[in-house]
């Protein structure tokens, strides 16, 4: 079995599991949690393209998510845009923004890049709060219309679940494809040795900006979907904490692993549901998780599983 055949089988199995899950879930509460897992998976996969593949940190990805949500919200509530059109417009806008800021920002490395993206996130967060006439300020924006497709209106937990997960599955599929292509290899090459990548003909500067743009664009799409399914948005969802949460999802799941991003997103979405204390200490818990993971499981959960499977195989052979 070739690698690409195996990829297809894994994706199909995962997709089927996602499709039948709602039939097994009892009650809207759980269904809603799984909607959030879908959105967070989409965001984590998007960030993974940048962080896990190209090795470039972003502590401002919640801003792209928020921009998608707010642009969708403003265009539909104030300018009577069709929600689908608003989504496309939001994604394009954010893509352009990311492309423009990408050139200066991605010249930076390591801590400096972290600081610059953090700064960007904070500026955008302040804009959400302060431009009250546009965004409704800290108290948020409501009345955002649902998406619809012919006779289907995506306004129930069940319809939202399928809406979100179709986009999430598509994001995962395209990312897996990208991972196993010349672009995916070039990105991982940048991660391992920028100098060698350049010498082998990879336009490192341009490719970094391109993947940053794609990552931001997917995040904006997730933001639009979020706005149109929740119908209400507020700045608190798009702050620094959420940017850190996204990084935590990617690292817990495993850098560079698409299914790992799903695991990371699932765990970090479910955890607060079980732990009530979480809300006051979330950033502390993310910090601890990050430290523990990087020390004991640098490959993330997926890396851990792979190591375990290899160990079991070795024992069988012995």
């Amino acid at each position: 079995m070739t690698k690409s055949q195996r990829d297809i089988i894994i994706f199909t199995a995962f997709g089927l599991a996602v499709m039948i899950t709602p039939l097994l879930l009892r009650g809207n509460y759980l269904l809603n949690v799984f909607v959030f897992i879908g959105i967070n998976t989409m965001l984590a996969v998007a960030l993974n393209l940048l962080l896990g593949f190209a090795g470039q940190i972003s502590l401002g990805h919640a801003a792209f998510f928020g921009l998608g949500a707010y642009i969708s919200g403003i265009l539909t509530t104030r300018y009577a845009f069709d929600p689908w059109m608003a989504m496309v417009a939001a994604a394009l806008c954010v893509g352009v923004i990311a492309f423009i800021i990408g050139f200066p920002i991605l010249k930076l490395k390591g801590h400096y890049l972290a600081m610059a993206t953090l700064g960007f996130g904070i500026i955008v967060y302040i804009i959400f709060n302060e431009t009250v006439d546009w965004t409704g300020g800290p108290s948020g924006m409501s009345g955002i219309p649902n998406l619809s497709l012919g006779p289907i209106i995506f306004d129930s937990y069940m319809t939202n679940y399928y809406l979100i997960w179709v986009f999430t599955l598509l994001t995962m599929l395209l990312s897996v494809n990208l991972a196993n292509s010349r672009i995916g290899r070039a990105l991982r090459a940048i991660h391992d040795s920028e100098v060698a990548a350049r010498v082998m003909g990879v336009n490192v500067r341009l490719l970094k900006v391109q993947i940053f743009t794609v990552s931001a664009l997917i995040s904006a799409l997730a933001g639009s979907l979020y706005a149109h399914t929740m119908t209400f948005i507020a700045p608190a969802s798009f702050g620094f904490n959420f940017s850190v949460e996204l990084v935590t999802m990617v690292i817990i799941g495993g850098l560079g692993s698409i299914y790992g991003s799903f695991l990371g997103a699932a765990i970090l979405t479910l955890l607060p549901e079980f732990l009530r204390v979480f809300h006051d200490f979330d950033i502390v818990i993310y910090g601890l998780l990050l430290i523990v993971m990087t020390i004991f499981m640098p490959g993330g959960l997926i890396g851990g599983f792979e190591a375990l499977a290899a160990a079991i195989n070795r024992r069988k052979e012995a």
Partner: protein
Amino acid sequence: MLSLQRITKTFGGVTALEDISFNVESGAITGVIGPNGAGKTTLFNIATGLYSQDTGDVYLGGQNISRLPPERLARLGMIRTFQNVELFGQMTVLENVMVGLHTKSKSGIFSCAFKLPGQIREEKTIHRRALKWLEYTGITDLAGMTAGSLPFGKGRLLEIARALASEPRIILMDEPAAGLNSRETMGLAGLIKKIRTSGITIVLVEHDMELVMDVCDTVVVLNLGHKLAEGTPRDIQENPEVIAAYLGDG
């Protein structure tokens, strides 16, 4: 093929290269030797666009390439290996060589993500050609290994395989025999000659004199950023200044 003209490079107060000129003949193996700190690696870094020189020009096949970045030079057919082996450590041996084919392929993010038919075909070609270069350098059996876990000698071979995969006109090798045992060095000498036979021009920075004398057509000697001598291996071996630089306090 490659022509360096009056290259000078300083780092702060240190003059790494001063007024260095020489030509690399097409199809030949040109050796660049000299004690540690002579400026050999700096010369490669300038030729391949990683550093920019203070003064002087570099020409490749008649074209002035002085201000071109490494990724452009790769497309023009100039490729190099590194003294400290720069592999893509977390990728497999095969994938490393596949990156070597980057300039030989062109699918963008969109066609890769959507697996457009042209991209699928291109991917197959990349895979097939990468395997060919593994075989050429004799490391086919390591294809699935993580590059970072390779023994040093195999890493050197992989770097050469990756460089060859881009089908260069000229390849610059920075101390490819450093860290190799004598059996591996002999294998390397054979490989270098085989590469030359295929028509690729080679510039070889090396400490292993036996290897240099064995494979090189011309040798350039650097010492403390100056060009000390240039000539056939035999001339160089008998040059009193060269002998002094190597045996004396230079």
